[in-house]
């Protein structure tokens, strides 16, 4: 009996005082406490970069607000739903977000929250980056990516929810920008909107801080991450928007020095009926893709729910007329972008009219599944614009020819040059600027550039006709020149949660 008792006692003591640490070692099937630079990089991929995530779009309605899209009326069972879903942005309503929400508009309507969710990812990574272990080179790479991405998101937010940088007579020191959250700690206070100047200063400072880090440590980054090209493109875009022409041209030049290749559309076989081109400008193997950023190929497809009929919303005839394209001339179709940048389908039951429906810059077989981001073409255009603006100011012919050469080089890669050589264009004065702006519109359509460009071109008047039911006369909505509504309303859902948040007028 004694031995039994002893052995029980010993085993009890053994169980009680040994093996504890292993037994109580935290264990989880799918949870991790990020402790290395590699894990922070994975957090960047999951939380910061939108490519490939379930929510990869930020604002799949922005082009509805531009002159690139029109609404058509047709009777259909889906019609009332679709019209209700997109009426808000299309007619520039102050309550556009609430209208979309109550109409259950699919995806990408929580723009404001979505940007800040991604910014939180950057902030988390920046907060933790110095406390984790890992390779120093990798650490600086991750830090650079987080800084650059945060700048990018603030830049986008400013363009959406703050007044244009170049608004005549604006005092940027007092005009409201957006809420500037720079760390991941939630404080028991309601943040206020920082001034425009403050936010733009932060964007520039962070980008300039990121630039050397990325240049030095990020040589192996894929097109889905921040690269040197990304930082130069963003700097060039930022300078352009701020009308700092020399800088814009310089940064574009730096970016082009890294990669100046463009996809020659004529070299991609002309796609058959219903097919997408095998490769396109946002395909993963596209030579001109700098950053395969966000958005998805199905962004505007909801507006084209039913085949073989005219669409509820489609690209505007005005935009279509800008392309010098002849589908039937198989020898020289002209500007191939019309066929390669848009999704085409029959638009009636007769199967005779074959028209572009929505913008889509994805290749068919080598798809990356993102349709917006940064491309080399933009660098050519940015540099051309900067040079044209300077030329218009000081009349320097060298700048004009440089701009024309950028434009012609871009166009020569877009035209059907299989059998016929590209014919260069030549403009001067205001005509050059007008031509340039049309070229930018043609090239960068449906990549969220048009709305921002219209803002900085002086917020011109736009008219949208809209009809949602057979018995209702079409109404023409007008966005006046310099209209306040060129700045998006802060969504009510954000205002309710933050009493200190100042609404946009």
């Amino acid at each position, binding site marked *: 009996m004694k031995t039994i008792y002893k052995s029980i006692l010993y085993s*009890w003591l053994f169980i009680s005082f040994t093996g504890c640490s292993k037994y109580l070692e935290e264990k989880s099937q*799918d*949870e991790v406490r990020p402790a290395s630079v590699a894990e922070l990089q*994975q957090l960047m991929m999951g939380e910061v970069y939108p490519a490939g995530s379930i929510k990869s779009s930020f604002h799949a309605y922005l082009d509805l607000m531009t002159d690139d899209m029109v609404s058509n009326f047709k009777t259909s069972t889906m019609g009332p739903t679709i019209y209700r879903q997109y009426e808000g942005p299309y007619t520039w309503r102050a309550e556009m977000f609430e209208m979309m929400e*109550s109409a259950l508009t699919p995806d990408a309507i929580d723009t404001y929250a979505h940007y800040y*969710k991604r910014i939180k990812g950057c902030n*988390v990574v920046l907060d933790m980056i110095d406390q984790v272990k890992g390779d120093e080179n990798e650490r600086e790479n991750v830090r650079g990516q987080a800084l650059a991405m945060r700048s990018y998101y603030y830049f986008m937010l400013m363009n959406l929810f703050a007044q244009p940088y170049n608004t005549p007579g604006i005092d940027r020191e007092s005009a409201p920008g957006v*809420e500037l959250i720079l760390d991941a700690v939630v404080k028991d206070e309601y943040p206020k909107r920082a001034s425009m100047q403050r936010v733009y200063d932060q964007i520039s400072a962070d980008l300039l801080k990121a630039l050397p880090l990325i240049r030095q440590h990020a040589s192996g980054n894929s097109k889905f991450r921040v690269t040197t090209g990304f930082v130069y493109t963003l700097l060039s875009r930022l300078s352009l928007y701020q009308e700092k022409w020399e800088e814009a041209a310089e940064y574009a030049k730096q970016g082009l020095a890294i990669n100046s290749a463009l996809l020659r559309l004529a070299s991609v076989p002309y796609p058959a009926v219903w097919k997408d081109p095998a490769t396109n400008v946002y395909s993963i193997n596209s030579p001109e893709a700098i950053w395969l950023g966000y958005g998805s190929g199905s962004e505007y497809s909801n507006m084209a729910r039913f*085949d073989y009929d005219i669409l509820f919303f489609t690209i505007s005839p005005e935009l279509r007329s800008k392309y010098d394209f002849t589908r039937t001339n198989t020898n020289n179709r002209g500007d191939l972008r019309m066929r390669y940048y848009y999704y085409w389908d029959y638009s009636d039951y007769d199967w005779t009219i074959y028209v572009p429906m929505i913008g889509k810059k994805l290749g068919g077989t080598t798809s990356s599944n993102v349709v917006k981001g940064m491309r080399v073409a933009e660098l050519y255009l940015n540099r051309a614009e900067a040079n044209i603006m300077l030329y218009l100011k000081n009349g320097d012919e060298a700048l004009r020819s440089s701009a024309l050469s950028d434009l012609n080089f871009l166009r020569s890669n877009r035209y059907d040059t299989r059998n016929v050589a590209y014919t260069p264009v030549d403009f001067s004065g205001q005509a050059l600027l007008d031509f340039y702006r049309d070229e930018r519109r043609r090239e960068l359509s449906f990549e969220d550039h048009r709305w921002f460009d219209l803002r900085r071109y002086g917020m011109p008047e736009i008219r949208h006709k809209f009809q949602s039911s057979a018995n209702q006369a079409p109404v023409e909505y007008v966005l006046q020149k310099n209209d306040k509504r060129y700045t998006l309303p802060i969504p*009510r859902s954000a205002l309710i949660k933050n009493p200190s948040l100042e609404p946009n007028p």
Partner: protein
Amino acid sequence: MKHLVVFRSLLLAAGVLFMLSLKAQDTEKPVSLNLKNAKLSEALNAVRKNSQINLFYSVDDVNRFPPVTINVTNRPLSEVLNKLLEGTDMKFSVEKNTIIIKRRPAAENPPSKNIDTTVNVKGVVLNAKGVPLGGASVVDMVSGRSAVTDLSGRYAMVTSRRTTLKITFVGMKPQTVNVRAEGNAYTQNITMEEAPNEMNQVVVTGYQTIRKSEMVGSANTVKREDMFYDGTNTVEQMLQGKLPGTVVMNQTGMVGTRPRVRVRGTSTLLSNQEPVWVVDGIIQTDPVPFNAQSLNDVGSSTDMMRNLIGNSISWLNPNDIEDITVLKDAAATVLYGVKAANGVIVIKTKRGKPGGRMAVNYSGGFAVTEQLNYDRLNLMNSKERIDVSREVYEKRLFGATITTAVGYENVLDRYLNKQISYDQFNQEVKYLETVNTDWMKLLYRTPFSHNHSVSISGGTDRISYYSSLSTSQNFGTARGNDTRNMMGTLRLDAKISDKLTAGMQLNAGMIRTRGFYAVDPFRYAQETSRAIPAFDEAGNPKFYEVPGYNGIPLRFNVLNELAETGNQNDQRNFNATLSVNYNILNGLRFESLLGLGSVNANAEAWASEYSQHISYIREYEVGQFGVGSKPYMESKLPHGGEYNSIESRNTTYNIRNSLNWNKLIGLHRIGALAGQEIRSTATRGFTSNQFGYFPDRGRNITNPPLTILQYGSVISNPLYSRIKNTITDRDANFLSWYGNLTYSYDERYVVTGSLRSDASNRFGQDKKHRFLPIWAGGVRWNVHNEPWMKAQKVVSELNLRASYGWQGNVAENFGPDLIAQLPSSVVNPTTGEYELLIKSLGYADLRWEKTKTMNLGLDLGIASNRFIMSIEYYRKKTDDLIVYREIPVSYGIDQMPINGGKLDNEGIELSMSGTIIRSQDLVWNISFNTSRNRNRINSAIVRSEDWRNAASGRLNKEGYGVSSFWVFDFAGLNPKDGSPLIVLPTKGQEQWLAGEKDATAYMKYAGRLEPDFTGGFSSALRYKAFTLTASFNMQLGGKKLLYQMFTGFDLPSAYANMPKEFAGRWKKPGDEKITNIPSIPSRIWNPVNNQTDPIMLLIPPYPGYEYAYEMYNYSTARVVDAGFFRCNDISLTWNVPEQLLRHMHIRNLSISGAVRNPFIIVSKDFKGMDPEVATGSQPVPRVYSMQFNVSF
């Protein structure tokens, strides 16, 4: 028995014969002896040991005489023997070297006084019903000799002629009888009286066995005999209404599903609210891990599978249960740690009785479940339904007609298109008015269920055993819903030595439950128009068209759908327990418990390609389009069906060691317990959703095509995103220490305190707070033991109890560090990189959640506890409850956890029981319990802008209880069109602005979904061999919304049936004065935009239009009192009298007939429907049963 005694005597004799031979002078060998009240055989044995001389005697012969007391030192052997045998009819002699003790020849026996002093007392001990009691102990108060009754209740012993016997038996009042014998034999039969309150002299908590007089916490016990079991009900249902403070709510009347159990209200908002189930000291684990997200996920296929898969105690055979105890307050549950906040239900199973005869018991029976019928469903018949459609046409109401495929709409459509003549039209409408398809009859049945259970138990004084084997087949009233199970158990208890005892238990069981997938027969029968025929003229199932994806019609017939879909759940259990109990010293005991449990659960749900469920995905009828056609190429699933499965393997082990010390010093009793426990659960599982399943082609799964055509482009098949395989691999380890200290003085004053601390391997916890302490303490005053209470005879028990407990909890998943999570697809298919997502940011400032529980109790027993009553009051306050606070969007997260919540639970419980009538032939026992719980949230928790949240009971609002809900304020009918009117604020009003954030600002508080007042009542009336029992259960104070009157804003679909009361709807202006039932929902002409619009009302926030008819569904007009009074069961039992059974070698036979759920009293608004089950679920059916119980 007799043979055994003789055998024993011979054995002893033989042993003695082998001893050394004896010399004559040895009879004078000095012997010392000091014995008190020893049996004569023991005394002689002591002499043998002392003297080293062999004695030969018959144990039975010498033990006929009273025990002896002797104290001699160094006296000659002969003298000692003479002294011992003095007064007996025995003498000793030396024969062949052995001292032989035998009876004197009759002549030698002097007519001595000794004969006067002894008598053979025998008799039978019976209980009040006349049933013999085996194992009762009979003690001679004078000599201290004792006997134990055999299984037929007989005892025999030798006593002096004038003595007092004390008879004791567990659960009976001890009795004393005086022996006044004259002759040699004396018969004393004893009838024991039951002592109701002393039935539970101990309370088994699973960790401790607490003497009832020292119990400070709140616990209630119900015995198996007091619970009704007919083979079709679950353990939870057996408990309904039996225990105060324990609410059992049936969710549906299907078999194989588990009801919800709540102990003392809801005390947590974000985690599991079910109590902990404990069987014989082992905490039971759910076969499928708890998933907080699926809490509100009612109606999904996984939910259905989860419900049918069974819970942690499905493996238990109800016939093996001895009793069930619910532990409610902090003092009672403290040793279970944090997880016991929802209460603990402790089940004790039967075990063999030591020293008992082997008993074989069979119980079994059959049950017939009543078929559901339209009487209890309050639905329109064909004629009434056709009337609605006719009114739509005759009034030319605007709106979309969903279908013209069936019903009046179909006939009208053909008439208007001139396909049939007016006569044909009238003829067909007439036919439809009389179709009256009885969906209930087609989908439901009157099933016959049966159950059998055999148990064998018994034991010797060293070892006892109990084993049982049971099987049952239980058929639900819905065709296709059934459950079968088979269970076995074996329990052994061994007394290895005086100090060491051990127990072993093995359980194994398998359960198979079949249910439904993709089609719910009850919902179908309830919602479908009776004007739709189920069969065509030829008697084949008649298919009709229902809208498919993109509106393309698809053929549907419910019988086909049921045949082509299925849901089957299998569960296999194995449990083993070993317990060891070692008495180290007097009063110090070491206990060890080892438990191992394994559950294997597998659930599968499928649909074949012939079902409409799959046609919907395929987008055309099976076989309609072939290879090469456009629909075939566009179809996501051109062949095969769907197959979903959940597989879960669960292994739990439990090691518990404790030291228990008890000491009685004078009037002071001290008890101490210290223990340590390890509990580990490993869950491995696999969940899979597959498409391309062919149940009839070798159960093959053929993958759907990789690419399909869409809008002309070839895209990857989107169905693949729904094909998902998930592996579950979780280990939950716990390490705990616990202790308890109890001090009581003179059985009058008791003070006790307990402590427990847990640590676990949960991920992401705050290391600082790893060991969670919990403590509780209490005091008790046994007033009835006070000297000044001894004089009176009325109050037999009176005690006051008070306890207080403190419990800290750190909410799961919120540590000071950031926690990242692997997404469901770890590799991003676009970027090809590994990803991590943020699960929760680090929250360094979170404090413990603190729950303080107070319990006050009073127990009163009157007239030797013939009537007993207890009252308890409790208050549970949770402070610093971790809740979510909404924060500005710019922080990038929607909400963050803060210590902001406060939740109060307060309640009172009363239970009473007593024997109203007690006579030889007639005994009437009743018991009654009731409890009231008030639950209140004392801080704003999550604000919600959504009125649907407010109407669903999920909104938590300060000052209101959990499950409170709000509805629209119905203001009558619009005199113009009979549409419902609702009281609503106008835009810009203060109420409107408040309503933008919180819908409750403009809605009306309707009450709580959960009842706050519950009660149970049981009665048992015995007249001679017949016993009539009945039990009732009521739940009051809950409110519910009636079933939805309108499914949309448009004209009613021809498929849908409507509530019968809709026949009394608004039909013409003026009707609004006599009815509250709105008109047929339709659209109204809007001259402004020249179109028809559904009737909508403006609600905040912008642009909150809501359909008026939808709002009516959630309006004050539809709120009803969900209180009910249900008769759970009535049964009549006949205990076949013993004299009829004796010749068949049957000890006991009882036959009972019962009806479960015979009636229910509810608010008349329910029109006979069952308010207990969730709206839209199958009501609890009525079950008639016969049960037999035979023991041999």
